[in-house]
């Protein structure tokens, strides 16, 4: 996958219309675009700017202010480790460190193949199951650092290279 995602003008147009071309709803438009493209492509931002008569500077102020937005493409599978207080006191930091090690990513970053991105979020709203992680849209509670590797294996794409090493190990 490459980071060049082609912006579908029609789709962006529909999103803008859904929010009535209303400048008070640029945040919502940008959220929808972020969801479709996993970032805010410049072309889409330009479309919002002209449809809502808002200048680009203001849109980019908004885009860089809120955590939900990213100017670089995020991973296909977002991993959100809850670092809310309830999860923190139940060992969320160890879980986060484990993901960081396993994926070789710092929180906030995305893997080069754009498969995973890793983020800390503050409370996923099911604190009773702490520590909690959201992988894509799926929430998973009662996690600990020792379970992280296994969890990731379920989502990991097997690259040919990995298969090879695996086979090689098998032949030992």
């Amino acid at each position, binding site marked *: 996958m490459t980071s060049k995602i082609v912006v579908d003008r029609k789709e962006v147009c529909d999103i803008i219309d859904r929010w009535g071309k*209303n*400048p*008070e*709803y*640029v*945040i*919502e438009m*940008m*959220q929808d675009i972020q969801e479709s493209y996993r970032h805010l492509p410049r072309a889409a931002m330009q479309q919002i700017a002209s449809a809502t008569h*808002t200048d680009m500077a*203001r849109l980019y*102020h*908004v885009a860089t*202010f*809120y*955590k*939900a*937005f990213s100017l670089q493409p995020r991973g296909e599978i977002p991993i959100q480790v809850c*670092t*809310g*207080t*309830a*999860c*923190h*006191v*139940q*060992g969320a930091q*160890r879980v986060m*460190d*484990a993901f960081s*090690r396993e994926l070789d990513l710092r929180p906030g970053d995305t893997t080069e193949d754009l498969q995973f991105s890793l983020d800390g*979020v*503050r*409370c*996923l*709203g*099911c*604190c*009773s*199951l*702490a520590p*909690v992680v959201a992988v894509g849209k*799926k*929430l*998973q*509670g009662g996690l*600990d*650092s*020792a*379970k992280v*590797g296994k969890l990731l294996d379920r989502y990991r794409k097997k690259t040919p290279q990995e298969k090879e090493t695996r086979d090689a190990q098998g032949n030992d």
Partner: protein
Amino acid sequence: MPKVTIENLSAIAAEAQEKHAAYKSILLVCAGTGCVSSGSLSFRDVLQKEIDNRELSSELKVVATGCNGFCAHGPICVVQPEGIFYQHLKARHVPELIEQHFVQGKPVEHLMYRAAKGERAIPLEKDIQFFAKQQTIALRNRGRLDPEDIADAIRRGAYQGLQKVLAEGIKAEALIDLILRSGIRGRGGGGFPTGIKWQTCRQASLERKETAYVVCNGDEGDPGAFMDRSIVEADPHAVIEGMILGALAVGAQEGLVYIRKEYPLALQRLYKAIDQAREWGLLGDDLMGSGMKFDIQVHQGAGAFVCGESTALMASMEGRAGEPRAKYVHTVEYGFRNAPTVLNNVETWASIPPIVSKGAEWFAAIGVGDVSQSPWGGSSGTKVFSLVGNVCNTGLVEVPMGISLREIVYDIGGGIPNGRKLKAIQSGGPSGGCLPESQLDLAVDFDTLQEAGSMMGSGGLIVMDDRTCMVDVARYFISFLMDESCGKCTPCREGLVAVHEVLTRITEGKGRREDLDLLEDLGAAMKEGSLCGLGQSAVNPVLSTLRYFREEYEAHINDGRCPAGACKALIRYTIDTETCNGCGACVKPCPTAAITGKLKQVHIIDQEACIQCGTCLDACNFDAVRVE
């Protein structure tokens, strides 16, 4: 669909009740976020299928509700009318449940709650200790109705407060007076009297001849709290009705709800509830046939804690970056689109309808203090808390104001799990504080908590056991706020970085003796000089832990020791030779391969290779890993 009017509301409620009562049993399956993530929806689907297959659907009705409250025991199903409580349900329990309970009439004991292993099963929800001391007002419909069906809400009494006001022709002034007399204070953190806020807004609106707005704050930025989302998910019409009543009081025609996009279920249920309310004539141009005009729009927050602050929230709803502005002009006077604006928290709005229908005196009689002269005289009503952390019965609780922390933690919460000791209770989120065990008998109300150096906050209540390091907790909150500070003003932006630096060096054992004074000085400067509440109260977690847990700071600084065994740089993991049975569970997960040992023999950790990640602690099934 029927148009609801002042005259026919009771008839619609009665009709819905009749339909409801025609079923032999109603199965209330919790579909709150907690239960959904432990699989309640697939349980519900299998349950429904089994009922259909056995042709029992005319007798048994399955309802997916919002959070029941006892999340620790989810997925949950409560069977009405008896109120039988089933817990930890899985799809595979369905055939047994249907056969035994609903065909043979013998409730299934092993799916019921027990106070402890081996104790007898407690069949009824109301007999469970967790629920016994609770009193529900804002959560009156939790786990009791289908949040996606307005008729079910009406059956449970929704819109009766509104009906009363319209039918009796209660004037705006009288409505405000009622709210004032109830003594209700804002549930979003500050505890500002709601009646006074409404009065000020109405005055500003009349004086300037500008139509006011009512706004619901559902940003819920407090990390570790889920009260507001649960209310919206369980009972969205309570919030809508509250806002309509607020609109009547201040003369607003438009209301806005601000909810974060990270709460998809709450958003989805709210959108649906608003649509239904419009169709049924409870929002729009002619509310209940009274001629009143009012509608509600929703704005989705994009993940910024500071957007919970009133001026930042208004900016965000106008499509701008959520940066606070100086508050010498309050948002009640110049708020959304510069018009007079009432901003209240979700729980505040949800508490308004019962106050209107049951009366100010009923509400004022619950809680502590005397609010008959002024709402400032006490704390009336109830408060919702999300009780989480190191406590047995985690979940959502609603208790009368004035209850003690001890009752919440031990009677409702069931104490601390794994035989550990209570260390502190954190309330008020990042602006709040930590109270030690010695303060357990404090009454939970706005003023008492404030005096003790903590605060009520929006309702996050986090219980911490003796493995929690209070310096680390303080550092945790400061790092949260450092991320969330909007950076507009210097004391907050730079102050947080400085405080964080000091705390970090203390947790690394590099603290200096003068650091504690430095923290207090920095705190004072930030309190004085910051623009908004975030910066002003940011050091509260530091100051309260310094006040109650000073010796723990000193142990880090003077002895380079973390008494709780939490600060990475100051601890060593070892394996207890007595307890280790050589199962090898820790060997593979260790990322640096620091653990060695033969199967069935004691394992050891190579201290050179160990990076203190704690994975072995999590992996060990026999508690053999020690922290020093």
